[in-house]
């Protein structure tokens, strides 16, 4: 991956400089199916968790064989696979790190995302074929620290989520290194790694993946012995709204961010597909013609269809205030629910075979979506099982169902149903 070459970039008609190299869109993949979806919907790279040393101890997590399969699949699209090995190790975790890293290297993993300097230096020494990216868990937000890690031999630093756009520009000015920044998804409201609420409340170690999101619980704030506000809806919380930078793609590209990272290894296929789809289109549109780039409402809508979480721009433009925290019930139901995934399509008959992921039935209004923003809405007319028996409802998970689509669809397109 090349670094952002701002100085040698072309000048547009306005005399403004534009970047020639395209930033990477980096998506989470909680399992093999999500990896395929993320890549198919346009991620340039995906990051996954292995069975060791990762921070999502309850995500599906990949075995070494699954990693190999994932790498092969991604390679067909020219995409890369990174593995998060971002725990802060305790003494008992140290053994076996080198072996594990060599295994990752041997199955073609392109990079690890590491926080603990011991894992960083072990990878540099024992698995030189792996790139080492410094995890956001190191909370790096100044250029001197970035320069330190560059001198240690790291090609990329994932900045702390507390870094502003202006600070990113300044870091890029001082240090020639790839910068990865979170652009979408849930955020710790604490400085990464600097929260042990879970350790205290439940003896679960957040820095080894045991976090139980205690920051999102409700607390009473006491002052002079009294609770400041009594009503339930006004309780104190540390929960942050999710990050969403879809409206600010040009700023991110011009600031020199090399990799746009989407959070969410625990998120659904539907979420990954729609978020990747939206950002892919925005980045491509900007790169194709920066001067006539315009934000499209449909990208914003697309993001809102899979999840209805309160969103904000984090620290990019100013320090988050009251509006950036969640004092109300945080998640409203999403307006659409993932119903099925397209597995086959026969052009002659216009019949698709879809695999059921949640119940649907004839008469229902559904929307099909595919990479590049392809989308259309239709009503389901008749549908049958694979043997051709008519069905009044598709109620079995993973069942293969035949139905007619109004427009051509492709394998891995998603079918979703309107809820609201």
């Amino acid at each position: 991956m090349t670094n952002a070459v701002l100085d040698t970039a072309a000048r547009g008609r306005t005399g403004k400089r534009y970047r020639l190299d395209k930033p990477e869109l980096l998506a989470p993949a909680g399992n093999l199916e999500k990896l395929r979806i993320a890549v198919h919907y346009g991620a340039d790279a995906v990051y996954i968790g292995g069975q060791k040393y990762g921070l999502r101890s309850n995500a599906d997590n990949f075995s070494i064989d699954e990693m190999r399969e994932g790498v092969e699949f991604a390679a067909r699209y020219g995409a890369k696979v990174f593995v998060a090995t971002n725990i802060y190790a305790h003494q008992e975790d140290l053994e076996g790190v080198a072996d594990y890293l060599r295994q990752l290297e041997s199955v073609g993993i392109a990079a690890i995302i590491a926080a603990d300097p011991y894992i960083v230096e072990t990878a540099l020494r024992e698995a030189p074929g792996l790139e080492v990216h410094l995890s956001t868990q190191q909370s790096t937000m100044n250029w001197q620290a970035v320069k330190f890690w560059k001198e240690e031999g790291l090609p990329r630093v994932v900045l702390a989520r507390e870094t502003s756009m202006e600070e990113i520009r300044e870091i890029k000015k001082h240090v020639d290194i790839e910068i990865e920044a979170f652009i979408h998804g849930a955020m710790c409201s604490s400085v990464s790694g600097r929260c042990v609420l879970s350790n205290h409340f439940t003896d679960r170690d957040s820095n080894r993946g045991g976090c139980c999101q205690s920051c999102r619980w409700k607390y009473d704030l006491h002052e002079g012995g009294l609770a400041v506000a009594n009503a339930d809806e006004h309780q104190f919380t540390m929960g942050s709204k999710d990050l969403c930078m879809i409206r600010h793609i040009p700023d991110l590209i011009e600031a020199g961010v090399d990799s746009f990272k989407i959070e969410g290894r625990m998120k659904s296929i539907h979420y990954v597909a729609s978020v990747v789809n939206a950002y892919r289109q925005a980045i491509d549109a900007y790169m194709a013609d920066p001067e006539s780039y315009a934000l499209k409402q449909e990208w914003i809508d697309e993001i809102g269809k899979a999840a209805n979480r309160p969103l904000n721009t984090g620290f990019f433009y100013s320090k988050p205030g009251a509006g950036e925290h969640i004092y109300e019930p945080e998640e409203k139901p999403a307006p659409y629910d993932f119903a099925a995934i397209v597995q086959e399509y026969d052009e002659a008959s216009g019949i698709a075979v879809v695999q059921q992921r949640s119940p649907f039935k004839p008469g229902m209004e559904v929307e099909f979506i595919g990479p590049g923003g392809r989308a259309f809405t239709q009503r389901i007319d008749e549908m049958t099982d694979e043997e051709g028996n008519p069905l009044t409802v598709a109620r079995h998970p993973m069942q293969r169902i035949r139905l007619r689509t109004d427009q051509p669809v492709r394998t891995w397109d998603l079918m979703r149903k309107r809820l609201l």
Partner: protein
Amino acid sequence: MLIGESRFGMRLPGDIGDSDIRGAIARAHELGAKAYVSADKLFRNDELAGLPDYLRLIADAGADAVVFGDPAVLMCVREAGVELRLHWNAEMTGTNAATAGFWGRRGAVRAVLAKELNEEEITSFVRESSLEAQVQVHGMTNIYYSRRNLLQSYMDHIGREAHIVDLGPDRGRFLAEAERPEEKLPIYEDANGTHVMSSDDICLLEALPELLAAGVRSMYIESLLKTEAYNLAVIRGYRAAMDAWAADPEGYVFREEWLEAIREHQDPLRELSFGFLYKEQVY
């Protein structure tokens, strides 16, 4: 003693600015004590500007070490061209000896161990590490740190005029979660952000012989959010115990009165606990 100011350090019980730090260090030396200066915050670009000069100042004033967490401090020590002993303190993330070794090879001589380690982990950390080990033996610990102004935001949310309210450490604010009303977590805001502290005070006085035998070099007492009388009682208790152990490790006996003197000053709403010393954590 650990001193400094919030421009560079984190959660200090008070600020000792440029003009006073020289005197403070000199006074510590007169009394036969060492003076370490805290520069252990995570820096933003614009907070780096004064750092090289500050490092020159404290080196010149004879600081016995500078405490750092952000590698930017290492870069600035080089840039400033000063000789300073380096203590590595990554707070919650100082969890293993191999990582301490990494910082050791880059100049650190002391590692501050995470407070979330248990006895077995501390023992093996100290055994495997070539750096001196510092362990917090008493006081509250920080359990959550944010760069956000969470109190200010909350006051705004409920419509209180936050700018006329002091949100700092001395106001006795605490959080309580519905299912654990007895756990009162102090919370305050300063220039570095919002800090939430533990509901209990670590007290490892009874475990001192084990820590000393394990080779822990420095027993740290956190004085933050405590009265002077309390801190005096605590320092006296640990001093007495450590002196007794040093004089005769074999014949050492724990004296209940050391602890009693601390208990006398202990806030009844805050438990004295062994922290994570005897805990097993899962993940």
